[in-house]
Every structure is written in structure tokens, then in C-alpha cells.
């Protein structure tokens, strides 16, 4: 385990912006080591991050301020997940064979600091979801399950976008494809299930971000926020990014109430802030800036 600098930039207490009076930014800390695409665990005390291009994976303990290198392989930083008890990290390893791209699933044991392969290299590998002692993954129109120990429990509800940019739902052994917007050519991305497993958050490219129920009925339209994630069952966090066709010229992280549609800007105005992650349990939100600074925000709900 390597200890690196953990820089507390500022403790800011006060209300940021505006429309939502019930969200206050309580503190703001910045990690000295550069990184991208942070992923908080459920309890909000650990965070994964990677380099641009998803090269390698590191973990920071937000309490001890220690940073651990989980992996240096390609693809490791793409949508890694914590095991429910944080004892393991599940991540991908990208490889090429005959110039075709493959992804395997690896498991990193936080205690032993050893990795092992959970799923052999796959041509198609969509979202991986942790379960007790293993993962389930949607792999080319079928669900695969890989456990470290024998596990007979029923796989939990699974919702994700597949390689054809469709929303797929796996429940009770059945795979169902949802098309909430009746798009002729499906282009659903950033699909996730709410913490209470009752609602699906998704973005339809070019259409906006929405919330639907488990049958695909639209419950809420959140406008044009990108990379949305659940904060808790009532709030989501996303980014409002603008580009000029060449590069992103502005982007801010916003927190939205899914019922009142109120928005609070979480990032600082001078930042180009992108790809948030959230832990409602710890009231933490993290994101990276264009130049690779990762900020961890603690909010207070009034």
C-alpha cells in the first residue's frame, strides 16, 4: 500500500447556487494525485479512479488518505465496482487479439491485494454488477454469473445498457428490453437502477435524460444532463457539458431533485467538471475536472 499526499484544499461551508435551497455544499477536498472517472463506494469512504483512457485503477481511502494501485492494465478504470462489503474490487482488463478487443473481469482482494480472473476475455462485456462473492454481467444477450464460492442465491434485479445501446432488464431469469421513448434506433446510455430498485435512470442520446419505472413508463424528464448517477432515491447528479465540436468548453456538476426538478450547482464556476459519482449514504459527490483534478464534495441536505 502506498501512501500519497492527500491535500485538503478547502473546507467550504455555505450554500452554492441557487435554485435548490435544500442542498448545501459542506466541504470540498481535492486529491493531489491526478485522476479521472472517480467511483465512490456505497458508504462513501473509498473511491476508485483511473487515468484518461481508463488506463489502470487506483483506490483512495478517504479516511486514511492512502492510495492503493489496484491495477495498471488497460480498461481497468472503465466502470469498476466495489463488492457490497468493499472487500473486493471488480474491474476489466482489455486485451487485443487479431486487433479485436476483448474484456475480461478481474477481482482484486483488498485484504490480500491479489487479483484473479472472474470472467474470461469476452468480445462483448456490458455492465458488471457485484453480488455476494462474485459478479453478474450482461454479455452478448445473456447474463453471466461468476462467483468465488458456490452461490445459489437468486441474481438480483439487473438493469443496464447493452452493446446495441438498448436498455436491458434481467429479473427472475428473464431478460427484457425496454424502449421507454420508442426510439426507432435505440441509443440509450448511462442506464442505472435507483437504490431502491424501483426506477431506472437513463439518457437517450440527443433526447435528454429521463427516469422511468421498471416497465419503461416515463416518470420524469430531467432535461439535458449527461453522465447522470443516482445520489439517493430522490436526487440524481449529472453534468451539464457544452462543447464546440472540438473539445468541451464548459461543464458543471449539478444535483437535481427528481420530483421538484430543482438544481444545485456542485462544482466551482471556474471548473470544467465532469463525470460525477455519488454516495447518498455519506452525502458525498466526486468528479474530475478537465485537467484531472478530482474533487470530493460533501453536501448537507436541509
Amino acid at each position, binding site marked *: 500500500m502506498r501512501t500519497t499526499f492527500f491535500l485538503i484544499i478547502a473546507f467550504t461551508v455555505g450554500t452554492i447556487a441557487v435554485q435548490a435551497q435544500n442542498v448545501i455544499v459542506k466541504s470540498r477536498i481535492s486529491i493531489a494525485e491526478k485522476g479521472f472517472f472517480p467511483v465512490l463506494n456505497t458508504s462513501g469512504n473509498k473511491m476508485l479512479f483511473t487515468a484518461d483512457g481508463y488506463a489502470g485503477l487506483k483506490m483512495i481511502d478517504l479516511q486514511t488518505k492512502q492510495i492503493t494501485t489496484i491495477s495498471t492494465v488497460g480498461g481497468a478504470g472503465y466502470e469498476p465496482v466495489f463488492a457490497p462489503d468493499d472487500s473486493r474490487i471488480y474491474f476489466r482488463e482489455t486485451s487485443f487479439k487479431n486487433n*479485436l478487443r476483448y474484456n475480461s473481469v478481474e477481482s482484486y482482494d483488498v485484504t490480500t491485494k491479489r487479483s484473479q480472473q472472474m470472467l474470461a476475455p469476452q468480445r462483448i462485456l456490458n455492465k458488471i454488477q457485484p453480488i455476494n462473492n462474485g459478479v453478474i454481467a450482461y454479455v452478448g444477450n445473456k447474463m453471466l454469473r461468476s462467483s468465488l464460492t458456490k452461490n445459489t442465491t437468486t441474481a438480483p434485479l439487473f438493469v443496464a445498457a447493452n452493446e446495441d445501446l438498448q436498455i436491458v432488464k434481467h429479473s427472475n431469469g428473464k431478460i427484457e428490453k425496454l424502449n421507454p421513448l420508442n426510439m426507432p434506433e435505440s441509443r440509450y446510455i448511462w442506464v442505472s437502477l435507483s437504490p431502491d430498485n424501483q426506477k431506472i435512470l437513463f*439518457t437517450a442520446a440527443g433526447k435528454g435524460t429521463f427516469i422511468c419505472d421498471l416497465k419503461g413508463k416515463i416518470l420524469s424528464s430531467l432535461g439535458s444532463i449527461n453522465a447522470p448517477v443516482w445520489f439517493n432515491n430522490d436526487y440524481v447528479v449529472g453534468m451539464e457539458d457544452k462543447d464546440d465540436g472540438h473539445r468541451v468548453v464548459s461543464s458543471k456538476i449539478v444535483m437535481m431533485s427528481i420530483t421538484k426538478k430543482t438544481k444545485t450547482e456542485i462544482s466551482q464556476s471556474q471548473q470544467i467538471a465532469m463525470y460525477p459519482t455519488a454516495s447518498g449514504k455519506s452525502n458525498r459527490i466526486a468528479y474530475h475536472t478537465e485537467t484531472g483534478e478530482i474533487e470530493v464534495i460533501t453536501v448537507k441536505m436541509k
Partner: protein
Amino acid sequence: MKRIIFFAFAILQFSFLQAQNLTGVRIYINPGHGGFDADDRNVVIAPFTSGNPNGFWESQSNLDKGLQLRTMLQNTGASVSISRTTNTTADDLPLSQIVTMANQFNSDFMLAIHSNAGNGVASYVLMIHYGSDLTDTQIYNTYNPNNPTQLALSNKSRDISTEIAKNTFANQITTWSSGYQVRGDKTFARTIMGFTDGYGVLRGLTVPGVISEVGMHDYIPETYRLMNMEYKWLEAWNFYKSFCNYFNGGQITTGVIAGQVRDSRIKLETSYNKFAGNDQMLPLNGAKLTLVETGETYTADNLQNGVFVFKNLTPGVYNVKAEKDGYYPQTKTLTVTAHNIAFSNFALNRVRSTPPQVLSFTPNVSLADSVEASTSISFSFNWDMDATSTTQAFSITPHTEGTFTWEDTNYRMRFTPNKPLEKNTVYTVNLANTASHPDNLSMLNDVTFQFRTKNRNRLSLITSYPFDGNNKVYFNNPTFRLVFDRKLNTGNLQTAIKVLDETNTVLAKTTRSVVNNSIVSPYGSTYFNLTQNLIAGKEYTLVVDGEVMDEVGMKLVEPINIKFKASNTLVTAQPVIETFETPALTYISTESLEITSATVATNTTKLFDFFSNKINVLFSNISGEALFGFLNPLNVSNDKVVGMHVFGDHTGNEVWLQFRIPDGVQYLKLCDLNFYGWEFHEVDLSNLSIVAGWTLTGMKIERKNRYLFSAVSDILLDNMLLYDELVLALKTISVSKLKAYPNPASSVVRVDVPVTSETLLELYSLNGELLSKVNNNKMNVTAFSTGTYILKLRTAKDQYTCPLIISR
């Protein structure tokens, strides 16, 4: 029999080929942003107006390529996702969504299809792939070349980008301005675009990716080509071929014939930039191409590109026939191989079935009229002519040297004399009937015409400041003024009129000081100052190039070198008798002639203290004189010298001082106003009659009919001095070193030095005006009237002056 052999060959070819198969390969295509908005890069080309959706839009062009590529890939089993299938503003997806879709699609490669822009003067293939250049060691926020994982993704991206670059660059229909480039986006964006961390569409990718920029859509010949769907198909086909190669997808079992049809001689007469070669020739809209073996035809579109494409051809030998009304058909034999494009560009010859005729010629005026001597001579024909036979058929009498140029793709020939024609001369021009067009038909008859030139064949310099030999040009920011007999063509004045120092270094003009043609018509002028002061005592040359011309193209022809010397005009070592800090003169209308108005006032443009006196006179006639009386007349004697600082107005008028005795008046010339700016002038009072009691009573400005371009005289006066000996011209003479004899002289004056190529003997008036110059040690002075002059001898090492009296 021939046909049987052909098909047998084709079958043989097929049997050795492994058909392409891209099953399982996953490609994500991003044809850029969509819509017909301001940021969708509409390049306006005729006949489409700005904003017309049917014209060229990069958004549409990228989409056409992307959709055609999708079809090719899907037909061979590849899985393809494309970020848009229509061209609407709603297709303007954020970069973050495009990147996410490419990742979510589990693609093996992300291809962003674009075309580039190079201000219409460049066209090349540019691939901007994820990562950095191989030679770039810079560590970026988003990319570290020392990180093996990021480096591997960069290398993968570069490999396939290079494959695409090579294949698209093989296009022989277009004209490339340079070779292909494969650049890492981090390096390219940093060094070319000023972005710190590459392009947004390549950031956050988990897969190799490239932004493809094949050609420049604002290079107008390419813009027209990009309006042709098959031309865009060719680019898509080259993408497809690249993927087959890279993903080991086997060879494309068919081949392609592609090319363009253009006129062999006629140029495309449009103003937009065209690289040398095919793009300059007239595209044959509507030309018909036939694949003889299959009967398949292709008709070139009407959008100035001449492009044709035959797709999906079984390998073999083909004959392609190109036809268009009014042209001789042409057939070419091409060998088509699998996996390749056989390019062939046709240059068709027009059918010129009638003899050439002269439709018009210039100058076409009666002999009663006349034309400028700077005229050129042109013939317009009904056919594009053969240059050799037509120029040989041309003659002009009197014989005149000149050059031929061809315009409108050889439909018009122009003969431009090397020098202006002779004045008031009748010229006879003949074009013999041997002039022919490329089909070897000659004119039926000679064409002959005459014209008379005007009585002027040179631009003339009327006056300049400094004038040649001027040795007292005030060093401090002098204004250079040249006046010609006609309004100037200002196109080449910046370089054709220049000031050189003693080392022949050009002294820069102050751009904002340049004023051209400000003088009354028909005269022309150019005035300017330099960016630096001159150095007192140094010699300079004002060079007027022979290419300086008037508005009708009449040139000066013979260059003029005006040599002058800078000096510090201020004379301070003598007693000042008038400071001109207040008005020292008053206008006397009763003793003036042909004057509309005349004033005296103080002015802040001065050499000493705070003010000068400004004398302003408006003459009512081309001759006239204005007399001003000194408010405080000064007693002088004829053993003294009066000197005065004068700011000349370069009018050519004269300034005289008035002296009175009780029973008489006498005028002595102070200076000719042939200068502009401050100079010091002096009058030797020994020229007054030898009597006592002279008083300096006034000053007279006399208009001289030298230059007609101004009726106003505007001069400034500052410190007037009274002293014993001349301080300028004669004072600087080293009499002992230069002996002129006889002196006084009546016909020829000699100096006692040997003649060399650098010996110059010059005669000046007392006012400094150069009157005569010879490269000899003797000079004929019979043309000059009785009086006192200054003789100057210039040698390679030095110069000497002495007074010369001419007397008869």
C-alpha cells in the same frame, strides 16, 4: 473469343481470393455534427447560395460517407453503430454522448469522419488519432507516453490510422498539396490548435480511435468533388478496405475504376484557387463513360468535378470509353484487380471543325483618334488557338519588341510592348492567316488594322523634393514629395519609389505618412516620410523606378536617381535680427498683383522658440506677386548677408527680399520654393548697389508658371540673421582645392583635375538648383545667363565647390 478469355481470367482471379469477412468486428462511426446550421460548415459554391441545404455542407458530406461505409461493413458481417443517420440540428450530440456510445457499443475502433479546411489553398490527408506523436515526450494531463497502457492505445490508434491514410491518399482523382499526416491528437492539438489535452471526441475512449480528415472541403475543386456521391463512396470504400486489411478481413474480391473527365486544353476560368494539373482544366459536366465489356454507363454530374466511378467490378481487363458532344471520344484500357481502385483521368480533345476567326481586336479606333502609347494589342478568337502558330503570325510595324500572353484559355492573345510605343505614330498590326487552332485549321484571311498613338509616351516627373543635388535637406523627418504629370497607378509605389542610404540600404517609409495622388488633376503625386531621421552630412539617393506608371499604364521607363545630402538646417552662430515670434510682416495689397488673399500669422510649426510666421497667399492668376512689409524695417549695408530659415511649400514660386533707399528699391531673391520643409537661405547684399542707407523693408512672393498644380503659397519663416559672410554654399567651398578657369567664363569652363569615370562636374544656381551635369572636366555654359553660379566637382573620394561667374 476475347470475351471468353476475359471471363476465364476473372474466374481465375476469384478462385485465389479469400472473400472479405468482417463478422464480429465492431466499428463505431461518428460522422461529425449534424444539421445545416452556422457551425456545420457550408462552403458556398455556384450555383448554390449561402445556406442552401442542397449546396455543400460538411455535415452532409460526412454523413454520406458514414452511411455508405456502414452499408459496406454490414454487408460483410461487421457490426456497426453510427452516431447519426440524419442531418438535423437534433443530431448535434454532445461529445460526451458520442464517446460513451462508442464505448458502450463495445467497438473495436471509433472512426470520426470529417474533412478539413485549409483556407482554400491546401488539401491533404490528416489522421488525428488518440495519443501522441512518436517523437513527443510531453506528459499531458490526460496522456503520459511513459504509461504503457496509454501508449498501447495510442499505437493501436496510429496503426489503423496509418492504414486509412495510405489508402485514402492513393486517390488519384484529387490533387493533394502535400503528403498524408498521421498525428497524435495530444501533440497535434497542442502544437497546432493550442489545446492542452487533445480532442474531445477521443477523450474518454476505451477503444482506439481517429478523427479522419481526408482532404479540405474549402479547396473549391474538392468541394465540387465532395458533391458527388460516388466520390464520397470512394472514400468510404477506402475506409472499408483499411478495415479489411487491419482486421484481417480478407481481400475485397472486386475492384473499382474511377477517374475524372476534363478538357485537354480549356482551362476552368474561375477565380478560386486551383492547384497545377487536372484541377485547372475544364471538367466535362455530363460526359458519358461506358464500360465497354459490360455496357455499364456512368454520366458525370453537372457540378464541375468530372468524376466517374464504376463499382464492384470483377477483376479483369476493361475498356472505358469517354464521350461528350463536341469532343473526340477516347477509350482507355484498364486492368482491374481485386481490392484496388484503377484510376484513370481522361483529357478529351474538342472537335474544332471550322477555321479560326478573329472576333475582335484592340485597339480598335480610327486613325483620327489616338490611343495611349502604353496600349497593349489583343485578338479574341472563336476558338482556342495554337500559341506557336498564332504568335508567329503576328507582326507590328514599326517593329516593336514585346511579350505574348494568353487569356481565357487561349481564346485571347495579348501582345504587350516592352516599352511604351512611339509618340504620335501610326502602327500597323497584322495577323497572318497562318494562325491556327489545335485541329490544324488556319484562318482564311489575314487580319490587319492600324492605330495612332497619342503624343505622350512617358510618365514625367515634374518636380521632386529633394531635387537632384540638393545638399541641405533638413535631416529631421523630411517629407519626400514627387509630382508627376499624371495621376499615378499606386500599385507599386511602395517599392518603386524608395530612399537609399550610402550603403544602398532601403530606408523604410512610415506607412501612415504615405499620401498618394492628393494633387489636383491631371497631376499625380506621392508624399511620404521615413521611419527614421536622416543623418546630417550623409548622402542619400531617392530612387524612382522606371516601372512607376500612371493610371493608364504609361511608365516612367527610364529610372531616376535623385542624389541629395542631409544637413542640419539650423544656423545659430550669427546675430538674429528677427525671431518671428510675433507677426513681423504685413500684407501690402496696393503693391501686390493678382492676389485673392494674403495673410500673415504666427504658427507653432517652428525651428526656434515658440512660433514662426506663416505667410499664406492665394493667387488669382497664374502669375502674380504678393508684397509684405516688415513692421520693423531693418537697416542693412551691402557688405552684409541676410539669412533666413524658410519652410518651403514646393510650389516653385520665388521669395524675394525688398530693400529700399530713399530714392530707390531693389529686390534680391532669397530662394526658389522648390523645397518642402525647413531650409536655410541667404542673400549676399553685395548685389545691392554700392550706396549707403539700405533698409530691408519687405518680402515678396512671386508666382512662377512652373507648376500649375497650386494657386496657394504657404510658407513659414523663422529666425532671420544678419552677418558678414555667407555661411552656406560659398562658405563651404574649398577654393584653394578647386580652380575653374576661365572665371568669369563665357562659353566653356574647365577644372584642373584628370577625367575619370567618376568625375562629375555640376553647375548649380545660387539657390541650389542643379542646372547642368557632365562626366568631364569641362562644361559648356553658353546656355546660362550672366550671373553668379556654383560649380561643384564630385570625385570618387571627395567633392569641391567654387563660385563661377558667367559673363558675356
